[in-house]
């Protein structure tokens, strides 16, 4: 582990530290929050930083620090779910298209292109308005919207890798196409896939924030970073810190993943 870390480049290490910090906050939030993230206090609305409420309170008197811990968790969960769906489904589609080519490739990729033509947030918007909001719907909606970008990336890698001699050699040894795709070629797309997963993570965090900001993502009283931003928007001049805190954490989270994503690229640094 130590050696693995030392062998990464500087960008990756910086990103890794930031991301580890985020996960630490999620863990803390699971074990202990000073207040209930949804408990309101009529007497303490829109308070600044204080000893009682280290990061202040929002417009309903809820403790921002407690809500932040919950919000990071929700946002991370949604991003993780989204990217998992996108990467898994997208890799399988990309692998099939890239390896076999021909008619299935044409069909699937035209569907992907059609999906790609719409911004992912718009697709998610359609999905949510059809099936309802809430965090699991958001995961499903964003997950599907993320499939095309993964499919494209993986397809491109497969197109390049399938002509290499090690694949021909595997064919000559009588190894079946499914095994060649997933055991021979897939491991060689590792770097590119990891990099797109990390960058996808970012886009998912942003997309969730966007959806929640628009009010169709995570529903009250649950907290997510986007939800917190959206709620504090009205009070931006009265209590700027209630918007600044979730905003800052969002930026930090995205920075962490971006740096890691840049750092694992084969041509990084």
């Amino acid at each position, binding site marked *: 582990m130590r050696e693995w870390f030392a062998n990464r480049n500087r960008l990756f290490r910086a990103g890794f530290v930031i991301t580890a910090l985020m996960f630490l906050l999620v863990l803390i939030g699971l074990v202990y929050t000073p207040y209930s993230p949804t408990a309101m206090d009529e007497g303490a609305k829109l308070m600044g930083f204080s000893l009682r409420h280290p990061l202040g309170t929002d417009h309903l008197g809820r403790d921002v620090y407690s809500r932040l811990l919950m919000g990071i968790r929700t946002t991370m969960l949604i991003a993780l779910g989204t990217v998992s769906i996108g990467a898994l489904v997208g890799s399988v589609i990309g692998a099939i298209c890239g390896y076999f080519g021909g008619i299935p490739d044409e069909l699937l990729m035209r569907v992907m292109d059609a999906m790609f033509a719409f911004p992912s947030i718009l697709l998610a918007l359609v999905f949510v308005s059809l099936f309802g909001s809430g965090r699991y719907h958001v995961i499903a909606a964003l997950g599907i919207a993320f499939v095309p970008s993964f499919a494209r990336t993986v397809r491109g890698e497969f197109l390049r890798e399938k002509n*290499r*001699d*090690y694949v*021909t*050699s*595997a*064919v*000559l*040894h*009588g*190894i*079946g196409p499914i*095994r*060649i795709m997933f*055991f*021979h070629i897939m*491991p*060689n797309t*590792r770097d590119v896939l990891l990099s797109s997963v990390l960058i996808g993570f970012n886009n998912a965090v942003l997309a969730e924030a966007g959806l929640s900001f628009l009010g169709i993502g995570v529903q009250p009283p649950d907290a997510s970073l986007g939800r917190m931003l959206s709620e504090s928007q009205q009070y931006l001049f009265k209590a700027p810190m209630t918007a600044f805190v979730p905003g800052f954490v969002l930026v930090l989270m995205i920075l962490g993943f971006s740096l890691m994503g840049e750092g694992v690229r084969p041509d990084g640094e």
Partner: protein
Amino acid sequence: MGNEQKRPLLQVEDLQIEFRDHKLPETAVHDFDLCLTRGEIVGIVGESGAGKSLSALAVAGLLKRHSVIRDGKILFEDTDLLHCDRETLRGFQGDEISVIFQEPMSSLNPVHRIGRQVEESLRIHHPDIDAAGRRSRALEALRSVGLSDAERVYDSYPHELSGGMRQRVMIAAAMIAEPKVLIADEPTTALDVTVQAQIISLLKEINRTKHTTILFISHDLSLVRQLCHRVIVMKDGRIVEEGETESLFVHPKAPYTQELIAAIPGIDRKIPVHNDNQIILHVSNLDAGYRELGHTRQILHDITFSLKAGEILGLAGESGSGKSTLARTILGLLTPMEGTIEKRDFRPAMVFQDPYGSLNPAHTVEWILTEALTGGRRRRERAAECRKAVIDAMEQVELPESFLARRPSELSGGQRQRVAIAEALISGPNVLIADEPVSALDVTVQTQIIALLEKLRTQAGIAILLIAHDLRVIYKVCDRVLIMRDGRIVESGDVEQVYFHPQEQYTRDLLRAAGV
């Protein structure tokens, strides 16, 4: 002229080059000395990683950012190129010192016309010459490198030219400003033998007519012998020997030089095993090719030949002659359009040219070999049996068992090719189809791999179809040879007969170019 010639044009003293990357050995080049006088051709030889290119590029001020010059002196006439400012250095680059590289494909910019690229150094160093002047200089330069159709080439894009033409264009671009020194970094390695010979005679011609000093870097000793006046032999970043070409080749002093010269293929030859073994493969009147979007591109025309058990059959020809397509068709990767392939107890396995590409970089040697053995259908209860077979295969290719845990990136080129051969052997074939198995390797490693193939034939009775563009390699081991050109077999027969009594002009050209 006499005095002028003795005066050094370029002088390099005690050059030390280091890699910035700490994973690699710290010093890449130690105490490199070089003295070039006007009109001289000096060769630098050595295997890959010996530091030949690094030293030469340092002279041109072209080191990449992962390597750095630690110490030393580079004097061009009276200017110190190491300690001058960037502007002065740029004034020399392309004007007084020009470089041509190995890959003519990647050294030319695909989006610009040839003419513009040839003129480039004039545009930079001689802004006083107008467009018409540049054009006439460029056309003249193109003609002088043997491109008689200069106008057409001038307006072409790189992809419209062949590899040999591209390399001529590169030479024209390098020579247009009439530099005093031309550094040629493996300029012929990516080219076919007949084209190689043309480029070598072109370099000789340039040297004779323009008195250009040439620094020629190559791993091919026979080319160096044909071209150079003086030779520097490098190994592991050090100069091991230096001297006049003929005396160095005839009386090499350093043991490493002796080894290199002994490894030049083609002088000795084992007596072929005449056998009346049964024919295991008979191909008759075969046509084959590729189908692309509706239309077919036929590559092979009317191929007829047979392969006997336990024989080594050479298949020679330039790139694009259809050698690899023939191999693919025999292996069943391509369906023949016409003709028949008869197989009797024909169990083939393939060895590829590039051991970097043929071994899956994501897995260990053991995984790769086990996968080939089981065809991807692994069974836990047969694990011990598999492991034994894997170890046996490693023994056959003379690699230690400890290598099983390594990944291809942790092996040298020769070791990789041994693993690739083990991978081929593990399924118990009686025929190896080896597509240029040694052309990506250094000469001393080539000799070892060829010896291994011969051993497999004599000890295990494995027949080999050896595809090679290097006629010397074929001469060394093959019983019979087929010469291919443009998808047809133009000549075939016992190696001795074909080499000493070639019937076709094309065969004679190939043999002459190979220096056999």
